[in-house]
């Protein structure tokens, strides 16, 4: 019952709010309330998982290998918390600033449903179904604003992600074919008996699908186009919440289900990740609009996650989880701050920029430390140098935006609504707070990594 509560709250909330006009403040407030309730339910579930171990339920009262199993473990809870938190913040931001389209609150709730389902399921096809729910909601969300440029970005986003979904579906079907089961724990057990070449091919298919979603180096071309042209709050939702599907998928399918293939391809993953970091950072330095710089920055940041995944082991996996969470927070604040003008916004942007660069006392510092430790664990000086170089480059390109948009203040543009500005500043202070007291987050990522390596899936 507790396992289903967040999912039920967001799902019924989304359906209940769909017929109403989301532009009215009352409807927006109800949507924010529903998301807060779902977040609290998720925290309660997280406490249950933390104290007594993973919570499971098999749908339809069927036996475990036959029915669809829903499972909440530390990894799923960590990602669900950050994704739901990001969506809650972005929705609150948009409601405070005034909603432009009637379907926004309902769409954000549908996306929360999809994301919650993705992180709390232990069946590979059910994962695909919730993944598609989240994606379709995001396709419609990307058109928010409805100027022609927004629609163009939405079309590009949609077609690229459709291709990713098709590749992922092929991977899931192949995984079923070689293991004979759809249950994640069953797959993890049986994958060693499958022909090694087939499993490697499946691993590559799944890596391509999730790499496309994350915006990793060879599959990155859609990212700047889409993030440049979408509405800031929607860009925050897409970048911070949806990219989590990519990280979670790589962690769950890579480290959880196919660890042998992960260690085989680890070198390649580290190379691709490093290329992402360098390419993203270098491209971000060229003169561009603020949203585009942040888009290139996210290409770079997900490279760190891939590097940590490639290093592997408990240290590397914990670093990957920690970095995903902190990256989501950073991107949320950056994108939201770009859309605002006013007195407090520059400070918020600067705090988030420090976090991306890894300057203490922000949360990003601990993210960089975790990657650094993973690199030291792998005895690789190149990796350590990469962490420093990446951090320095991100300082450069983010403070160029700060200098252009906030330092040389343009008094002609009116300041944005106070509520939105206070929200963004509060989030930025949250980043600093985590930087000063990182122990809970570090413990959460360590147990999430343990859930992967210890109990199979």
């Amino acid at each position, binding site marked *: 019952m507790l396992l289903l509560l967040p999912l039920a709250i967001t799902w019924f909330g989304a359906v209940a709010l769909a017929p109403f006009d989301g532009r009215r403040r009352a409807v927006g407030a109800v949507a924010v309330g529903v998301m807060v309730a779902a977040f609290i339910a998720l925290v309660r579930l997280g406490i249950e998982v933390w104290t007594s171990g993973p919570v499971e339920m098999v749908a339809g009262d069927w036996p475990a290998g036959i029915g669809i199993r829903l499972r909440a473990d530390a990894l799923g809870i960590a990602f669900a918390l950050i994704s739901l938190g990001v969506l809650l913040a972005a929705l609150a931001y948009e409601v405070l600033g005034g909603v432009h389209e009637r379907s926004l609150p309902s769409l954000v709730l549908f996306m929360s449903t999809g994301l919650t389902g993705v992180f709390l399921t232990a069946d590979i*096809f059910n994962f695909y*179904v919730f993944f*598609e729910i989240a994606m*379709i909601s995001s*396709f*419609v969300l990307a*058109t928010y*604003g*409805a*100027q*022609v*440029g*927004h*629609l*163009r970005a*939405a*079309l590009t986003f*949609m*077609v690229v992600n*459709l*291709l990713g*979904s*098709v590749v992922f*579906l*092929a991977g899931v*079907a*192949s995984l*079923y*074919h070689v293991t*004979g089961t*759809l249950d994640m724990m069953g797959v993890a057990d049986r994958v060693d008996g499958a022909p090694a070449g087939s499993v490697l091919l499946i691993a590559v298919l799944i890596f391509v699908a999730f790499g496309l979603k994350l915006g990793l180096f060879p599959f990155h071309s859609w990212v700047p186009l889409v993030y*440049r*042209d979408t509405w800031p709050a929607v860009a925050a939702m897409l970048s911070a919440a949806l990219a989590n599907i990519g990280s979670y998928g790589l962690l769950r399918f890579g480290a959880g289900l196919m660890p042998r293939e992960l260690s085989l391809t680890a070198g390649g993953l580290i190379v691709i990740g490093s290329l992402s970091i360098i390419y993203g950072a270098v491209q971000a330095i060229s003169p561009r*609009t603020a*949203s585009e710089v942040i888009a290139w920055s996210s290409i770079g940041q997900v490279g760190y996650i891939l590097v940590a995944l490639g290093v592997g082991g408990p240290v590397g996996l914990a670093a990957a989880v920690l970095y995903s969470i902190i990256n989501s927070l950073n991107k949320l604040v950056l994108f939201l701050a770009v*859309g605002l003008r006013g007195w407090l916004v520059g400070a918020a942007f600067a705090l988030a920029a420090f976090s991306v660069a890894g300057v203490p006392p922000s949360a990003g510092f601990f993210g960089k430390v975790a990657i650094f430790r993973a690199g030291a664990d792998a005895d690789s000086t190149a990796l350590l140098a990469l962490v420093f170089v990446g951090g320095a480059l991100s300082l450069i390109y983010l403070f160029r935006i700060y200098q252009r948009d906030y330092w040389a203040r343009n008094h002609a543009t009116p300041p944005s609504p106070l509520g939105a500005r206070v929200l963004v500043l509060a989030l930025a202070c949250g980043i600093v707070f985590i930087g000063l007291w990182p122990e809970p987050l570090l413990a959460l990522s360590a147990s999430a990594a343990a859930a992967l390596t210890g109990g199979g899936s």
Partner: protein
Amino acid sequence: MILGLALVISILFGCGAFLLLKRDLIRMAGGVILISNAANLFIVAAGLSRGREPIYPLPPGERISDPVVQALVLTAIVIGFGTVAVLLGLIYRTYTARIARAVDQGEETEGTPVSMPPEDRVAD
């Protein structure tokens, strides 16, 4: 049987990819439909066995078809249906937005192509 399915899947995927790269958005949607159907056929090909229908009472000693794959394909078809509906709606919205902008700018609206709008900076 597998070879035949593989050939059909690859032909579908190839035609879909060719259409996907066209300028006309309706053709692009057609490409998306073909590719998604190729993936559905792929799921059918991933079935574990082929034989009689999987309904009790089972005929003894005969191979039975894998029912899980049927359920997977049905779900995938429904999801593809929903996705294509959203894509077509988005294409329609793009078309009407271009018509509206052409009207605002006093241009001719007859014969506006249903294609990707040209790149221009969105005012922040």
